[in-house]
């Protein structure tokens, strides 16, 4: 295998691993917060249903965490195995957040273990809830630190390059690079948003499948409300990201918008197809790109023609960008209508078709996550470190990457199918109605024993 092939397969394998990992990782970042909120609401309202909600979510969460942990370990090591030259360089500049991520992960792992095995140890549920704080913090901070590394790849800062040598290295400046604030915020808030909509989809699905229990209704209302808040947050930060791109990475924004000529009063292109440099069938919103980029309808936006041809990302990123944004807007609408409908008593939000829409929201949010990451990553092609190192220079020279790709593809298939089967079985075998009845029974039993002691 020549180096060109090794580069191709390394890219494919990295993409496969990351695309699989982020499904579980996003859930892993978002769900602990949801569990914590449910537990808190349960304590606050003194409502057993929310506590049970937290408990059942936690049970499913363990399975996704397991897959997230092992695929995270895989990508962590694959970075060095597939991109040794990049990691050698990155190790000198960006090792700090990478290192801190393992601490956050460690912290989360310890407290998740304690949390899961002390369900019935504390009589006071508040004490038990406190254990979730480090889990949620650890989960979110792993995302923060690892996204810092990715932000560095988009906007390398914190060192000087003198005759090909790295000098004057400042680890903190590398961590707090210009891409960091928008990237980190967008990643974290979309993870919360996705987790909320995935959990909402489960509740909506149970309601559709004939379970009319108030437990599912409470779950649905809570998660949709959280989803609405986080999806609005995602959109606001998405707008900041657009302004960041216009300033620091104009070629990525221009490729996403098929914006060729540098001009003021730039229109925004939605959808459409590309024919050479001609955009067909697109919805053109005048001034919108200038507003997105600079908050000024007449501001000049740099076009692709101003860049050397070999430094332009593939133009198909437009479709990825459009899909991500469309889903994001759709989710704000759906959750907004649901929330309004509950308050104003609109009947149709309880209809089957609307419920199906809520079910679709979960998978759609995950698709948006994938699209967003593909856009962010493909959009900085051909660079692995923008402006410093191109992808082929970073790749391994090893000749066995293709075989490893097939092996890992098989692994992810096994893990994906396995986790779905196990999760389905877990909740099918123990539906919430039965669990509520069992717990009620256990409590009566306990009361009786206590009563017996007294007499």
């Amino acid at each position, binding site marked *: 295998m020549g180096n060109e092939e090794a580069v191709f397969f390394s890219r494919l394998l990295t993409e496969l691993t990351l695309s699989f990992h982020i499904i579980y990782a996003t859930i892993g970042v978002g769900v602990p917060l949801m569990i914590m909120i449910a537990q808190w609401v349960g304590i606050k309202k003194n409502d057993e249903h929310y506590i049970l909600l937290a408990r059942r979510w936690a049970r499913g969460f363990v399975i996704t965490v*397991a897959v997230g942990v092992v695929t995270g370990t895989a990508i962590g090591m694959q970075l060095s195995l597939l991109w040794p030259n990049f990691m050698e360089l990155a190790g000198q500049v960006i*090792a700090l957040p990478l290192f801190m991520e393992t601490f956050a992960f460690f912290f989360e792992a310890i407290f998740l273990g304690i949390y899961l095995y002390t369900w019935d140890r504390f009589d006071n549920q508040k004490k038990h809830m406190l254990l979730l704080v480090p889990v949620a913090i650890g989960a979110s901070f792993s995302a923060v630190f690892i996204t810092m590394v990715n932000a560095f790849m988009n906007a390398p800062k914190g060192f000087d390059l003198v005759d090909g040598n790295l000098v004057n290295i400042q680890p903190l400046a590398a961590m707090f690079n210009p891409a960091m604030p928008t990237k980190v915020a967008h990643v974290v808030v979309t993870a919360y948003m996705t987790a909320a909509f995935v959990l909402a989809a489960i509740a909506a699905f149970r309601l559709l499948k004939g379970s009319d229990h108030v437990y599912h209704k409470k779950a649905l209302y809570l998660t949709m409300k959280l989803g609405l808040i986080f999806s609005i947050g995602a959109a606001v930060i998405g707008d900041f990201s657009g302004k960041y791109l216009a300033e620091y990475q104009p070629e990525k924004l221009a490729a996403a918008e098929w914006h060729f000529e540098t001009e003021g009063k730039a229109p925004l292109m939605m959808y459409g197809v590309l024919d050479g440099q001609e955009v067909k069938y697109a919805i053109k919103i005048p001034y919108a790109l200038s507003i997105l980029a600079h908050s000024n309808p007449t501001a000049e936006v740099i076009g692709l023609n101003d860049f050397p041809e070999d430094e332009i990302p593939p133009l198909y990123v437009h479709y990825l960008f459009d899909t991500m944004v469309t889903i994001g807007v759709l989710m704000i609408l759906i959750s907004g209508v649901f929330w309004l409908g509950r308050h104003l008593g609109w009947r149709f939000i309880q209809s089957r078709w609307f419920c199906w829409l809520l079910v679709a929201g979960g998978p759609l949010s995950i698709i948006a996550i994938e699209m967003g990451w593909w856009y962010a990553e493909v959009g900085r092609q051909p660079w692995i470190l923008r402006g410093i190192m191109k992808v082929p220079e970073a790749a391994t020279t*090893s000749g066995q990457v293709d075989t490893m790709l097939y092996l890992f593809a098989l692994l992810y298939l096994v893990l994906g199918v396995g986790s779905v089967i196990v999760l389905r079985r877990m909740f099918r075998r123990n539906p919430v109605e039965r669990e509520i009845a069992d717990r009620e029974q256990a409590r009566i039993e306990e009361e009786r024993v206590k009563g017996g002691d007294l007499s």
Partner: protein
Amino acid sequence: MSLEVLGISVLMTFLFGYIIVGAIDFGAGFFNAYSLLTGKERILTNVIQRYLSPVWEVTNVFLVFFFVGMIGFFPSTAFYYGTTMLVPLSLALILLAVRGSYYAFETYGARGHKGYSFMYGAAGLLLPASLSIVLTISEGGFIDMVDGQPVLDYAALFTSPLTWAIVFLSIAATLYISAVFLTWYAWKAGDPDATNLLRKYALIWALPTIITATGIVWELRNHNPEHYNQLLGLWWMFVLSGALFIGTVYLLWKRRNYGLMVWLLIGQFAFAFYGYGISHYPYLLYPHLTIYDSFTNPAMATALIIAFILGLALLVPSLYLLLRMFLFNKDYVKGRKKDEHA
């Protein structure tokens, strides 16, 4: 102490931590699967599950910590080991992934699924072998530089007696460490049947462990004379390690002081591990890479050490809490606490 030595000492300590907790974990998975096969699961499964359940995630972090720290302190290792170790480490990753996720599937999702337990047990036995390849390669002689790029010589690797000695040691030591530790744990749980069975396993695996360990020293004499000579210079560490080994086996044999026995075991491996590591100084990959020519820039080194100290300030109390709530909690260990998992 120079920053380089400090860095490598930190990493070695985490690697040692991984070797001990990993060995207990891998061995436990194997014994669990073996007990299913021989119809003794009634005796072992409870003790093993009770130990493993709250810590399975933590074990993995020790490994991640080690390899991320390695890249941080010694970025050139990414170039040498990254390029050459694609196949063995990818296989290790796949085994880790199957093992970790199927443990969770079995424990939380489908209790009593035998297929999952077997996969889990088998992967645990292959893992130490695939990870130990890194140790073999660090001895030098298996990597050729072609056009400035390192290339792993598989033929030399698989025909070398050193490779196989290290592979066998890793497997034997895994089972030995695990059995000794679980003997103590079962004894604490007040479970005489499990204690006796695990004690038997520990005694069975003691001899192969010490034979293969000696064999490696013997092999090094031919393979890497420089390392061998430095090893001889540290003879007292290995003598102490041997004495602790004899102490462990003695207590095991006499069924006495199981708590002390675990500490002797850890001491034995600590002396052997650090003795081996120190004698490897200053090489990370003989003779291509030393800890000096691969060390990161001073700014990053300082930042990493500060992060490390702050991180430990967070981790040590948390780990202590974990141990107190489960490992050293009498009621939990004996199964009296109704700590059913979520």
